[in-house]
């Protein structure tokens, strides 16, 4: 379920849906990308829900629509799988800042986001701590500074870049089966193991790895470029 791709999809985040579908199909698992536009109800039967990045106005409108719709809250409370990137992650928290001021979020994840003094723009490298995954790579582009509450855990520790930028060197958030991150790239293209983890949650079993020569080569190149 790609939720509001035309509103929350500024940074190529639709690629996350394409990567999930492609990796499922390569394993013979039927997969369909359902793009839910803002005028439509969010279906309740999705296996994985994706929310991407967007500008302030789009983010504020998306949170109102999602609150009125109500389905995403039931999905998260029922243990549904959500990948929320950047503005999409902020929307799931208690509050976030937009140009219009402090906005009440959906309150589905124990985070709050305020506006930082400067914009975090650049390659971001993360050592995951909440999930059993290799180093995560991506590109961040945000002004959010996200504090993580007691009910949630950071996704990992920042190796290069800013991440949540709250002073404790963390990046992203994990709560139940919701994964939030500032990593674009898109994140699942740059980190196929995270895509496979989400797919494994959806099918109820860990998946055998695929041969990924291009994605592997890209990861080696990116890690080398950032650590140089």
């Amino acid at each position, binding site marked *: 379920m790609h939720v509001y791709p035309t509103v929350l999809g*500024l*940074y190529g985040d639709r*690629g996350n849906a394409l990567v999930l579908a492609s990796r499922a199909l390569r394993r013979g698992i039927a997969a369909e990308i359902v793009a839910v536009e803002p005028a439509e109800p969010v279906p309740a039967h999705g296996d994985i829900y994706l929310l991407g990045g967007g*500008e*302030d106005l789009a983010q504020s409108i998306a949170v109102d629509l999602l609150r009125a719709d109500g389905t995403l809250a039931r999905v998260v409370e029922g243990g549904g799988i959500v990948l929320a990137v950047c503005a999409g992650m902020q929307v799931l928290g208690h509050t976030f800042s937009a140009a219009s001021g402090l906005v009440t979020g959906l309150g589905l994840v124990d985070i709050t986001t305020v506006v930082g003094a400067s914009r975090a*723009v650049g390659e971001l490298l993360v050592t995951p701590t909440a999930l059993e995954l290799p180093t995560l790579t991506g590109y961040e*582009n945000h002004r959010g500074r996200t504090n993580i509450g007691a009910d949630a855990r950071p996704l990992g520790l920042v190796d290069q870049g800013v991440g949540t930028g709250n002073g404790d060197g963390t990046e992203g958030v994990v709560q139940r089966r919701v994964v939030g991150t500032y990593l674009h790239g898109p994140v699942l293209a740059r980190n196929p193991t995270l895509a496979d983890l989400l797919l494994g949650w959806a099918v109820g079993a860990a998946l055998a790895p695929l041969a990924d020569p291009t994605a592997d080569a*890209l990861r080696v190149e990116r890690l080398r470029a950032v650590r140089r």
Partner: protein
Amino acid sequence: MLEAVIISTTQRRVPSGRRSPRAHLAVAAARVTSALSKRLGRGHGTVIGGRVALILHPKLLGELTRGRAVTIVTGTNGKTTTTHLVAEALRADREVASTRGANLPTGQVEPAMSRAPELVLEIDELYVPRVATEVQASTLVLLNISRDQLDRITEIRRIAEAWRDLLGGVTWPLTVIANADDPLVVWAVGDHEPVVWVQGGYWWREDAALCPACGRVRPIADDGDWHCACGSQRPHVAWWVADGVLHGPGGYAAPLGLALPGRSSEAQAAFALAVATTRGTDPDAALERVRAVDTVNGRFGAVDVDGHQLRLLLAKNPASWNEALHLVGRSDAPVVLCVNARGPDGRDTSWLWDVPFEQLRGRTVIASGDRRLDLALRLETAGVACRADADPIAAVHSLPGGAVDLVGTYTAFHDVLKALDVAW
């Protein structure tokens, strides 16, 4: 004969004596620096010369352009081509100086130094308020707004807001020529008068899901029409192209017959005619010159590379790649795609996932450029078989002889031009 030349010169040129001593110094410094840079093989020398001049005289553009008509062309895509077409159209009956592909203020010193009575300047979207105010532009062409270099521009709406603020407070007569198809452009224009609306095309619509005026979700119809409950809607156009025929005010209609390919070139030609007629040029004379343009700064040009007829296309963001792929899709020629992520390209390659590469399935495709691996993964995921080659020229050589299309991001494209020794 000689007399006639002298008369036209005195009529059309601004006497140099009006320049301040400081402007003289800045212009002389720009000339010396540009010539030196050019001799050292560092390109046109336009930008470095302009940089020196603007350090010596920060208000130089305003002083040099005083009393001359300036048209500014801006927008995410099509700036360079439209600037070229507008300048060509106006040359039907006057002398024009125009920007050569460098759209920051430093790139405008060179055309402003000329004595041409009319200037056509290509200006970066975010610099438009500053430059338009400084030169008291007479005409402003607003092409389109969509995502591009998000690491630098960060929010698309900022561009529309900057234009809207400029037009809301403009204190001199300024004619706006704007794209009626793009809701962000229409919102940016607001209540400004006068406006000439052009059917400027808006084919990649991922940035137009929400009404910029009120935030409502409102669709754009397949034919490009849109209207919102808040009252904002696609304005009636004065200039449009239908089935290869250009239509204008007063029932004007003429077959376009452009040498440049593609629907975006048709829209840009409509902009050129809208500007030219607003500035008093005869439309038929203007169109004749626009038709003849077959390459713009190396773009669209065909180059022979050892038996390959290589067509060179520049694309730098989802909307412009969408148009490049639309062109490429008209044949089954092999395609070399080159993606870099250096400063002018935007350092984040995430946008590759917004480009509809799926339409290249079944074609021979080679991924090149610094970020060929990002591109190759994107293509594989789209079901497009490809191979990667670090060197785009070697990639062309590896293909059987015949037509080849090459699409590159800004720096990748210019590396190819340099490697092939194509002037731009």
